[in-house]
């Protein structure tokens, strides 16, 4: 595999520093269903997913992050239901596990199909 080394990437008009590409890319992500059989659909840099209970899933990371995941950008989506949302919980200085909690429009933890979550940050 060849490596392109450059400090900036551009299209001839605009350019961004290489760090914007390297640090802005999701370093771990997963898509899964947990309404019925808990099933992983696609992942990158995720060794396993844990079904922690109704609406709650944990992503276990293959290549740990440098810092606690709390220091990085986490984003996600729970199902496709109108008003559904999600939030994240991270235990202590954990660089290996991120937990996502899906909830319905009333805020109750709820199982959905079509969940996804990712994290951008520096890998160890």
């Amino acid at each position: 595999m060849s490596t392109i080394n450059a400090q900036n990437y551009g299209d001839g008009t605009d350019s961004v520093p290489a760090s914007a590409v390297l640090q802005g890319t999701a370093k771990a992500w997963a898509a899964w269903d947990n309404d019925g059989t808990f099933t992983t659909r696609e992942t990158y840099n995720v060794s396993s997913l844990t079904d922690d209970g109704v609406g709650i899933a944990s992503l276990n990371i293959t290549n740990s992050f440098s810092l606690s995941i709390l220091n990085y950008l986490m984003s996600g989506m729970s199902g496709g239901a109108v008003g559904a949302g999600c939030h994240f919980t991270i235990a202590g200085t954990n660089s290996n596990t991120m937990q996502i909690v899906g909830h319905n429009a009333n805020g109750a933890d709820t199982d959905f199909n079509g969940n996804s979550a990712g994290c951008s940050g520096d890998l160890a």
Partner: protein
Amino acid sequence: MTVDYSQYKLWEREMIFKDQHKDLPQGNYAILWEDPADPDAPAKVTRPSPTWLAMAMHGGILPPVEVYHKLAEDEAKEGFTRHTQGHLLHETPPVGPMTEEEAMEYLVQKDIPPQVWRDYKGNRQVLKIVPVHLIPTNREFRNAWKINQEAA
């Protein structure tokens, strides 16, 4: 083409592997476990990522599980802010091919808290590797799930 994954960083290895291996099957096993530190919590179910499982069974990609233990030790130290031994993930010679059962045992030691698989001294069975078809699909009482001690 045979790839020598060991010359790449761990996260690069998965990118290369995924490029060459598509539509990977779900694993046949799940880890069913309870956290002794939170006895009121329901049983948890951990399933491997199909990509990770395929990498484990391929061999030559994943570091020895002890590398994760070393990083966990560092992380547990007072004042931890940043991993300084992340190079162990990339530079330690990867382990060889595993069977699916061996991969599940590796995953227990990597992704399940040590207080479950190593330190627990109680009488309950708090950890089992089970065929996926034994996990209920009806989630109506999901938050009441416990490991069946009679079947243990």
